[in-house]
């Protein structure tokens, strides 16, 4: 095995990184918006948001192919008007990663916003703070521990994404071979040494993330203990 070929690691980090940025912004916005509104059909929307969590990734991949494939609703339009093809590119891996990790971000952010002490926000409003200032200086910092947990979970989920990625991005070495895909095709080709290398890398990444999250979570529990005293 050529040990200097780190493409799968770099590609995985790039895909998971970009996907996490997209998921963080959209997930936080959606959770904040829905936490403040009550309307008919809210539960349906929330269920749709969380659906990719319970569906097999192949089903998500199938749905994305229907949308972004060459003859898909969005795919054909992009191809016709901008000559852009999504499938079989690294960006297809980003889309797959966004869809499967969005529910994790949404769920964490939603819990964080709903568990906030809303008197803090109201206190800020009575002091003349605009809604944007309330969000920026009160809501966001107080919800940050929950948002960060969602961010980290989304990143690791993006890093480990396989099924939907394979269906939408395919396996093109040097182009769409993220670590999980590299492992699968290495095993299929009988390159156990190569597969083991990537398995160790991804287990180490996942393990350190969970360790860090646990440490962070405990730290916050202690912090809030102090606050309530």
């Amino acid at each position, binding site marked *: 095995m050529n040990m200097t070929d780190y493409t799968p690691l770099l590609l995985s980090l790039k895909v998971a990184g970009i996907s996490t940025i997209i998921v963080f912004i959209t997930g936080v916005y959606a959770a904040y918006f829905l936490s403040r509104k009550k309307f008919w059909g809210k539960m349906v929307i929330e269920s749709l948001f969380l659906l990719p969590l319970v569906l097999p990734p192949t089903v998500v991949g199938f749905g994305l192919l229907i949308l972004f494939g060459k003859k898909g609703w969005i795919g054909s339009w992009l191809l016709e008007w901008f000559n852009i093809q999504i499938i079989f590119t690294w960006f297809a891996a980003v889309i797959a990663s966004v869809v499967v990790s969005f529910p994790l971000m949404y769920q964490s952010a939603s819990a964080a916003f709903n568990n906030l002490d809303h008197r*803090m926000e*109201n*206190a*800020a*409003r009575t002091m*003349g703070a605009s809604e944007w200032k309330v969000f920026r200086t009160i809501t966001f910092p*107080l919800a940050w521990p929950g948002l960060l947990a969602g961010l980290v979970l989304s990143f690791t989920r993006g890093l480990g994404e396989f099924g939907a990625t394979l269906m939408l991005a395919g396996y093109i070495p040097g182009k769409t071979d993220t670590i999980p895909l590299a492992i699968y095709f290495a095993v299929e080709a009988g390159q156990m040494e190569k597969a083991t290398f990537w398995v160790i890398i991804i287990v180490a990444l996942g393990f350190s993330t969970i360790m860090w999250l646990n440490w962070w979570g405990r730290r916050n529990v202690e912090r809030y203990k102090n606050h309530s005293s």
Partner: protein
Amino acid sequence: MLEVHIQKQLAHFRLDVSLKVKDEIVVLVGPSGSGKTTILNTIAGIEHPDAGSITLNGQPYFQENRRPLPPQKRNVGYLFQDYALFPHMTVDKNIRFGLKNKNDQDALFLIKKLVHVLGIGHLTHKYPHQISGGEKQRVALARALATEPALLLLDEPLSALDQDTRRECQDELLRLHDIWKIPFMIVTHDLAEAKKLGDTLVHIKKGSIQKVVDPSAQKLNCF
């Protein structure tokens, strides 16, 4: 002058009150769940009545069939139960939070004065979890008054304090009212406290006013 005429359907009863408050201390007293906090919330603009009107010094805050004035535009200071100090900001940042312009010399002078009057100068660099209940109350008062409100609402401001601190803070509130001369509206379920603080006592039960008492007149009547 604050004028409140509001109706609002709550879970178990209908809130229906009419009040006029001059630059005095009005205490709303009554059992828990009688709608006292809801009255303060509607004045602050955090909740809205179903019908009625709220005006402060002639400015309409709420009128039927009109868009209510948002809390940001009401010139109302609100001291929440348990104070709702921002846990991630120092005392100093908490107090300065409502400043529109950080270099506004008049506002900074007012804050200096408030910090001095309330004796919290030694706390400014501490976080809320590092100070005592009585100190939190003083910080919350400074924060609420720093925006120069035309009315101060206080929801059970002393309920979390021990007896001695409570007595001290009651005196403090009276002293502040003497200095600021704006209407104070205080919610409590402690009748003795209500009598000590209030120029007017409004007894509320299940959303309606049972009686309005002037404690000083009552004292005169005793003689």
